[in-house]
Every structure is written in C-alpha cells, then in structure tokens.
C-alpha cells in the first residue's frame, strides 16, 4: 500500500517536472532580465563585479595578512566565485517560497520549482562570473592545464548541494521567519570557515579550527575546484566520494523535509 503511494508520488513528481520545466526556465530568464534591466552595462556587471571585488580584497589582504600564496588573485577569485554561487543560490531560495505566495495561493504549481529556479539563476550568474575567472587566470599567467576541463564536476557537486540546502532552508523559513535574519550571520561565519581569502596552511596548526573546517562541505567543493583549475591536480577517488556523498545526502534530506513541509505552506504564507 505505502509502496504504491510512493510510486504514485514519483509518477506525479515526474509529470509535474515535465509539465513545469518551461516555467523553471522562464522564471530564471525573468530574474536575469529584471536584474540587469536599465543598467547601462547590463549583464557585464556579472563579470565586472567579481573582478572589482577581487582587486579590492587582494590589495587589502596581501597588505594586511602578508599571505604568501602563489597567484593569490587566481586563488581568491576561484574560491570566491564558487562561494558567491552558493551564497546567492541559498539566500535567494530562502525567500523564494514566501515571495511567491501570490502565485502559490492561486494556482497549483509544484513548490520546489521556486528554490530550484533560484539555484538555476545563481548558476547562470556563476557561468558569467567564470569569464572574470578566465580573465584573471590569463592576466596572472596561471598555467592552463588539461585538468581545467574537469571544472564542471565540482560545480555540479556544489549545484546539487545548493539545491538540497535551499530546499531545507526555504521550507523552514516559511515556518520560522527568524531564519532570514540568522542566515546572514551564519553565512559570515561560514565564509571564514572556508579557505577563500586565506590559504589553507594558515589554519593547519590550529587543530580545533582545522577540524571544524574539515566538516564544512564548501571546503571540499572549493578545494576540488581549485585543484582542477589552477593546480593541475586530479582529485582522488576518496575526495570524489566525499563530495558525492555530501551533495546527494543533502539533496535527499532536502527533498524529504521539503516534501513533508510543502503541504502546509499555503496556511503559513
């Protein structure tokens, strides 16, 4: 009996996804249009923004920290672009259900479309910021190697992780609006627990902090991303396994929580 119900759920999920896939694309396209409408440089801002931030931060941190990282600009922009992808996707997703309340109250739309759409939107922005990454790499003369071609793998891992995390976040935010305010602080802590503006060596001597960092999913994605992009290193089998496990586990958890919560969304938005 319960097996039959699960089958039906799966069937419904599949037919919904097929039917509403155009909506997913349209909503993402809408977000992009609105984001850049009436700005003179338009979509070029997606490229300039990370470049300018990189310029400011590399200047500040190479003065302040006296960090010795080879090709620091490349090192930084690789980490920060992946981080920005994650932070944008989850922050936007968090609000996505609440801000689509007008729609949810009036038409039947599968609700996971909304966080999913925000993740897709963030992924598209990330793709544009990759142009900035390439510019910095060429400018700094980072050696371009064959492992570069593997870059979609860490992005995919991170994307799946983003979807899972967004599902959890968006569902919980409907019930507890405090999360909106808390999440900004969490992100600030989180970014400092990810080696983005500082090299990993800096924290290796502090075993407590280092072990916390090792529990941070973003650490693995960022490391993977840098390994293939600038270090010409092939991530090991176990590194892949860790990434796959983190992302799929988060996705599964997200799907379960979201599925449980979504039936009552309408009463709370």
């Amino acid at each position: 009996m319960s097996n039959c119900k699960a089958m039906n759920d799966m069937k419904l999920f599949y037919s919904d996804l097929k039917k509403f896939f155009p909506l997913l694309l349209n909503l993402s396209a809408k977000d992009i249009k609105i984001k850049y409408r009436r700005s003179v440089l338009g979509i070029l801002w997606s490229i300039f923004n990370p470049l300018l931030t990189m310029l400011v931060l590399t200047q500040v941190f190479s003065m302040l920290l006296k960090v010795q990282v080879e090709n620091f600009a490349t090192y930084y922009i690789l980490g920060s672009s992946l981080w920005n992808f994650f932070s944008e996707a989850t922050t936007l997703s968090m609000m996505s259900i609440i801000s689509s309340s007008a729609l949810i109250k009036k038409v039947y739309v599968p609700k996971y479309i909304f966080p999913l759409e925000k993740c897709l939107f963030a992924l598209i922005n990330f793709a544009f910021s990759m142009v900035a990454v390439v510019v910095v790499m060429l400018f700094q003369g980072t050696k371009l190697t064959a492992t570069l071609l593997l870059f979609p793998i860490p992005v995919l891992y991170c994307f799946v992780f983003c979807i899972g995390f967004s599902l959890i976040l968006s569902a919980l935010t409907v019930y507890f609006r405090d999360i909106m305010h808390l999440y900004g602080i969490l992100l600030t802590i989180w970014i400092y627990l990810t080696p983005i503006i500082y090299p990993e060596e800096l924290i290796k001597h502090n075993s407590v902090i280092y072990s916390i960092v090792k529990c941070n999913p973003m650490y693995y994605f960022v490391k993977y991303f840098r390994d293939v992009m600038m270090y010409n290193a092939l991530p090991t089998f176990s590194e892949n396994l860790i990434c796959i496990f983190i992302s799929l586990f988060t996705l599964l958890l997200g799907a379960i929580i979201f599925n449980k919560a979504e039936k009552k969304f309408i009463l709370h938005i």
Partner: protein
Amino acid sequence: MDKNNNAVELRNVEMHFNMNKEKLYSLKEYFIKFMKRELRFERFIALQDISFDIKKGDVFGILGLNGSGKSTTLKLISGILSPTKGQIKTYGTIAPLIELGAGFDMDLTARENIYLNGSVLGYSKRYMDERFDDIVEFSEMQDFLDTPMKNYSSGMVARVGFAIATMTTPDILIVDEILSVGDFHFQQKCEERINKMIDGGTTVIIVSHSIDQIERLCKNCVWLENGKIKMIGDAKEVCDAYKKS
C-alpha cells in the same frame, strides 16, 4: 476509459484550519510557548462533510455568504489546498481563473508576462507561440504589448489574465468572481467566451455573489452555509430559496 461522466467528485470532504491564537513566526516565541504548553490551536472547520458530483458539461454554481466556504471549495477542486479528510477526484484538465493575473510580474511587459503566465499554467513555449496572437487580440492590448505591466490599469491586467486563462478549451473551468472586473463591454465578451466553452462541452464551476449571474448561467447549483451543504440541485430552485432566506 471514462467509466463515469462526472467531472468532479467530492466525497465527505472536510477542511480544517489550525488557527493559532497569535501567529508565531519566531523560533524563540515558539519554544517559549511550547515549554509553557501554551501552544494553543483553535480548530476552524471551513468545510464539513461535503459530498457532491459535478457532471461533465455541467455549469455548476456555488452560492453562499462570505465565509461559507466557497473559495475553499474551489481551491480544493483546483488542487491548491488538500483536504483534511475525504477525497476529491477531478477528471480532465483544469483552468483556474481564481483571481486573474496571479502570476504576473509587474516589472515585466505584457509580452513577457503572457509567456510567463502560460508556463505557470504548464504550457510550453511553442504552444504559447501559436496562441499569442489570439491572446493579444482578445485582450485588445496591441498597443501596450511592450509596456511594463505596472503601468497598466487593473482592468487591463484582468483582460490579459482572462485571455490567457481561457486561451485553451479546458475540461474544467473554474470562475471565481472574475466576471465583475473590466468594463461592460469586456464583461460581455467574457460571458460570450464562457458560453462558447459551455457549448463545447467544458464543465464550468462558477462562484459569484450575483445571484442573477448564477441563475442566468448555471444549470445546477450548491448552496453552502457555514461550511455545510444547505441545499443542492437545480440552479433555479436553489437560487429562489437563497433569495428568500
């Protein structure tokens, strides 16, 4: 394939809403109340033991005062809400007209919104391309296609919404008080289109406060009072009884 000729079946449907005394949106409040065991919910029964069938091709009206459960019934039928108890079955595609233009983004132009709204209803881009001209013609918005919709009047928004929602011939059309928007000319146009659908065999479910409209359009009708069925049957009889009360 269709064993019966019902479009919608409701069986012992009940809908409860938990209305907390105050809305607790913060985690802290929630925990404090939870610890103090002060988490009180007031159960509000919006619908109770509702069972009726709507035949295919019927024009079915739902009457009742404010708060009698009309909109809840419509939302249940269109699948936006799921019932606390009981079963609801619908056969065929449903086009909900519940508040026109629900999916519009006011920063976008009408052209963009038509495609967006089409996909909200689950139609592909190619499908929308074919019907785009029809929609524009019906809504009479040729001159304002590339104006952001925030500059539209509410009547104009409703026109575009109606044109999109009725561009196809759905099996079931749900109409919630929408015939009251727009000017006289457009209202007539809407009724004409609905009549054409009825002739084409579409099942139409109408909620309205205007008894005249229900009497004019509907064949059958249900009268809800405080979430229960007060009377069901021929539209004329129900309307007469409703007027007397």
